[in-house]
């Protein structure tokens, strides 16, 4: 046996189990091919949230006069910042799911010709969007620091933990929708219809306290029903860390951890169940 640099066996096995090389290559494929043959290229990925924030600010802050909550304890009061810290994670949520849904059906030729673990397809499309989110969040932090004199850098570790949890949560959802879409193409259309109302039922454009707490539906308070949406927890937590400059509450973390675990376990179970026949149904 020639002497060679050997990676410890356990680490190699883990890298193999997680398909690190395949995930890296597929994610790179996604990122590299996305803006090929477009003149503006990567500028588009910055333009998208920029346009959104201008339009939403005009409509919701200027026309409809929605007041952002005052950052507590930061004292910040800026609709643009209030919006952006939750809008970027939300847009990651939307684009990840939209692209992951089609990730298996769009790779039909590959799936019917080569065996490889299928879960890497939805996972890599989420990873590619996650890298975009990382860049956008970095730009956001710098912009806010310059414009608002608002230094959120100390909260970066908390935001990174939140983002990692959101990544896992989104991969769980992506596994579900991508596998289901192989059998029912309705999923991709359903998602297109569902994502817009979902956004309006998440406190991105307005503070949570605008949802009436004193009204009930079938004996359950509006506010309670509203908070069943797991994206409410993410939104609040991001806003705590980057707008209020406050550590999210324990209940918030608990809700986030529960949602992440449940979605990942369900997603993996559903995917495993639907995986064997994918090559026949795709």
């Amino acid at each position: 046996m020639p002497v060679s640099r050997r990676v410890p066996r356990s680490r190699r096995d883990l890298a193999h189990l997680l398909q690190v090389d395949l995930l890296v290559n597929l994610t790179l494929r996604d990122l590299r091919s996305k803006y090929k043959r477009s003149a503006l290229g990567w500028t588009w990925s910055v333009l998208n949230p920029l346009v959104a924030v201008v339009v939403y600010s005009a409509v919701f802050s200027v026309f409809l006069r929605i007041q952002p909550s005052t950052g507590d304890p930061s004292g910040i009061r800026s609709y643009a910042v209030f919006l952006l810290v939750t809008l970027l994670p939300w847009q990651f949520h939307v684009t990840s799911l939209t692209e992951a849904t089609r990730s298996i059906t769009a790779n039909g030729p590959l799936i019917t010709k080569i065996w490889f673990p299928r879960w890497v397809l939805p996972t890599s499309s989420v990873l590619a969007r996650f890298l975009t989110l990382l860049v956008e969040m970095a730009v956001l932090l710098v912009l806010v620091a310059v414009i608002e004199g608002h230094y959120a850098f100390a909260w970066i570790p908390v935001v990174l933990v939140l983002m990692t949890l959101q990544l896992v949560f989104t991969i769980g959802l992506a596994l579900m929708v991508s596998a289901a879409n192989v059998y029912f193409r309705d999923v991709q259309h359903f998602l297109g219809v569902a994502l817009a109302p979902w956004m309006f039922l998440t406190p991105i454009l307005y503070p949570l306290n605008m949802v009436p707490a004193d009204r009930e539906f079938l004996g359950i308070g509006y506010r309670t029903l509203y908070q069943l949406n797991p994206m409410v927890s993410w939104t609040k937590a991001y806003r705590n860390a980057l707008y209020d400059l406050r550590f999210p509450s324990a209940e918030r973390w608990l809700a986030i951890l529960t949602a992440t675990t449940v979605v990942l376990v369900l997603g993996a179970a559903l995917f495993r169940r639907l995986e064997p026949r994918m090559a026949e149904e795709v």
Partner: protein
Amino acid sequence: MGGSRSGTPAVTLEGLGKKFRLTHDRNWTLKATVLNGHRTRYEEFWALRDLTLDVDHGDTFGIIGGNGSGKSTLLKVLAGILRPDEGRASVDGRLSALLELGAGFHPELTGRENVYLNGAILGFTSRDIRRRFDDIVGFAELNRFIDEPVRNYSSGMYVRLGFSVAIHVEPEVLLVDEVLAVGDLSFQKRCLERFARLKAEGRTIVVVSHDLDMVGWLCDRTAWIQDGTLRAVGPSAEVIDRFATGPDNDDRHGDGPTAGGSGLDRLSPDDLVRSVGLFDPNGHPTVSVGSGRPVRFRVRFDADAAGEPVTVALGLYRADGTHVASINSGAATSGVTGDRSVTEPGGVGPGVVEVDYDVPFLPVQPGTYELSVALHDATMRKVLERHTHLLRFEVEPTGIEPQNGLVALGGTWEAR
């Protein structure tokens, strides 16, 4: 290395069965499912059934059979793409499947990026690929174009790169599905050389092909699969012979004048070659020729579908596989276009061209012979279609004096 691993076979099939669902109205929507109460009714169709088979380490194994016999399904089950519904299929050793070359390529990425991507899909780490990168590009002969987007590649370049990546995975078990039907002749030749090298290294190769010559040349053992079940397995020459001549080979839908039976029926309506026939000097179809007697070989093919000038090549083989002669029409038929014979008497059909090869005397010994037919482009660089052992016919003894060997010299004795 594969050969040393005696004991377990490289490939084991035990009562393997794979069924497909044939749905008449495909149920793509949730609404229909909900309204019907459950999934659509479907028919079950067994593409493979009761297959039991072993392939030893180091063997080169062929799988032959007609269209729709289940050969490719079997390969997909072995590759892990399809899950068996019955029995068991197992492969011992690192596997690589050449089901379609360049299946994982992304057109917008460069050749280099695609090599890494395709390699990763085939189970390589990036470090593995980096180490073999120069070999991969060198074998594909793409050094100058490796940083071009793959969408600018010709189909030949595309296929060469795909083959090169797959072959450099250094599999212990290699599954190949008809991939040699693509690429130009020199590339096909290099692929075959590469297979021969893998074979010499003791690796296991399983080949699915219609090219009986290639299977006979490359494979030690061959299985004949028909209607999803195993018809015969054994040494390649025997199995191929049974497949090509077997009276139970009911996989035939031929049209046109058949002479002698044999493989003419293997022509499908999509093939360019429509028929091959044997005619006596009076122009009557026949099934046999006298040794040293005149004969005419007639090939009909669809010139419209070929879409370019065609060179017809004939190969004459003895039933034991000995190559007797090959001839091609060269420029003689290259100029033939679709409009020449459309309206000729005998009505060969629109766009169909009839080409005759007249032999004043057929100088071969009595026995059973087979004719292979290939269509090339005008420059002979590209094979449009190749049919091996398409026509089987008898050469009858004519002389009174006993002869042996390959050719009938047709001389006369004179004693003084």
